[in-house]
């Protein structure tokens, strides 16, 4: 990159001097810049022209000089600074050479115009940001209410029911009456309590394994309905006794008789 003419004209060209000073200032404070585009924008200001008329070629040269300088000063530059330098070097060579009609891709002018656009856009955004921050801000120039009244939320319950709820409720009440005759059916139902009551004294007598079915009360074995309820109740009662630690249950095989004995 030694072919880059250093931006140090002999004459007292004020613009060139300013550019050089700017470039030097850049080097001093590389860390303070927000990337290569930021540096380029700063450099372009030295051209003191409308950003649309900027000389991208001159800008590229300044940037390359900046990178070169940083290197000689052994200043650590982030990779994107070097990527930008490489790209600008490429752009510079394309701008200096006559366009090759054979070449594919965008023209050097297009690339330069885009870079100018990017710089102009970044500058515009910075100006916009400054204008935004200069506005009257809430909590600094404008203020909201100091005392706020909290809205108290009043919870109000609204009860609902559907017609189906209503009818089901009525049906429930009315069918309760209809069920009343079934109360007599309880004669055919051995309850768990009854079975338990019956087994408690008996279990004390059985020291050996006894078939559970022998515990069914008399009169509950012939009728299938009665036998079923008695069996269920007796079995449930025996489980209860096992749980209480008074008895043990065993069954040698699936569907084999269930046997019960007192726990010793």
């Amino acid at each position, binding site marked *: 990159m030694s072919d880059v003419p250093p931006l140090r004209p002999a004459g007292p060209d004020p613009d060139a001097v300013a550019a050089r000073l700017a470039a030097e200032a850049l080097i001093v404070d590389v860390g303070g810049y927000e990337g290569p585009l930021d540096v380029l924008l700063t450099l372009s200001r030295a051209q003191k022209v409308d950003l649309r008329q900027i000389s991208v070629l001159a800008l590229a040269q300044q940037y390359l000089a900046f990178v070169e300088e940083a290197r000689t000063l052994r200043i650590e530059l982030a990779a994107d600074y070097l990527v930008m330098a490489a790209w600008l070097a490429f752009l510079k060579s394309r701008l200096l050479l006559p366009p090759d009609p054979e070449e594919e891709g965008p023209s050097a002018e297009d690339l330069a115009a885009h870079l100018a656009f990017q710089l102009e856009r970044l500058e515009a955004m910075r100006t916009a940001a400054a204008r935004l921050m200069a506005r009257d801000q809430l909590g600094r120039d404008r203020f909201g209410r100091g005392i706020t009244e909290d*809205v108290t939320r009043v919870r109000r319950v609204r009860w609902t029911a559907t*017609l189906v709820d*209503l009818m089901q409720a009525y*049906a429930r*009440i009315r*069918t309760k009456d209809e*069920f009343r005759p079934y109360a007599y059916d309880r004669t055919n139902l051995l309850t768990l309590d009854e079975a338990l009551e019956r087994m408690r004294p008996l279990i004390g007598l059985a020291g050996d394994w006894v078939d559970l079915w022998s515990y069914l009360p008399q009169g509950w074995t012939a009728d299938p309905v009665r036998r079923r309820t008695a069996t269920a109740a007796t079995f449930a009662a025996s489980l209860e006794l096992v749980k209480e630690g008074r008895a043990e249950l065993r069954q040698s095989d699936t569907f084999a008789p269930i046997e019960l004995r007192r726990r010793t």
Partner: protein
Amino acid sequence: MSGATEGEGPAADPSLFEAPPLAEQERMVEAILFATAGPVTIRELVGRLPHGCEPKTALENLRRRYEGRGVNVVRVGEAWAIRTAPDLGFLMRQEVEETRKLSRAAIETLAIIAYHQPVTRAEIEEIRGVGVSRGTIDQLLEMDWIRFGRRRMTPGRPVTFIVTEAFLDHFGLETARDLPGLSELRAAGLLDSRPVPGTGDEDDETDGTEGQSDLFEE
């Protein structure tokens, strides 16, 4: 010469500065009262306003200006504040409505009233087989789903309950007579009980009308 003079800061010589016009002072007081987190004393106002301001007059003007408005300038002890007009306090409450299913006791009581109206409390209890708490009746009255009917012309002249227009409205009924009878309830599958042959299946209110089945559509 420089020795004798005091600090050169502004406000060193009050007479040099004129107080802002009263209308401007009023604006200032208004802004301060609005933005400050608590009531502001006159002393504080004097301290915050430009030199020479007379907050008392400004406050008085401001108070008059806000008379009858949605917010008022009010005196709180020795201080002043802007507060919501007392009659608009209701705007500061937000009602959150929560819908809940009626309890089983309430819906059953309601159903009995709907099917048997006019009905006395004793009758409701008889039909339900359990007592009806005062709260249940009160709730239904409060919901405007039942109301008092005529007194029964029996000893003790007990009050009766009937359902209201609001009830019919809620359940989408023209009249309470439109409620389906037991056999229809059963036909619609709302009775999960097995029918008992020979018992009062042919119920009182069954009138065999059509078109009631569509009540179940929902």
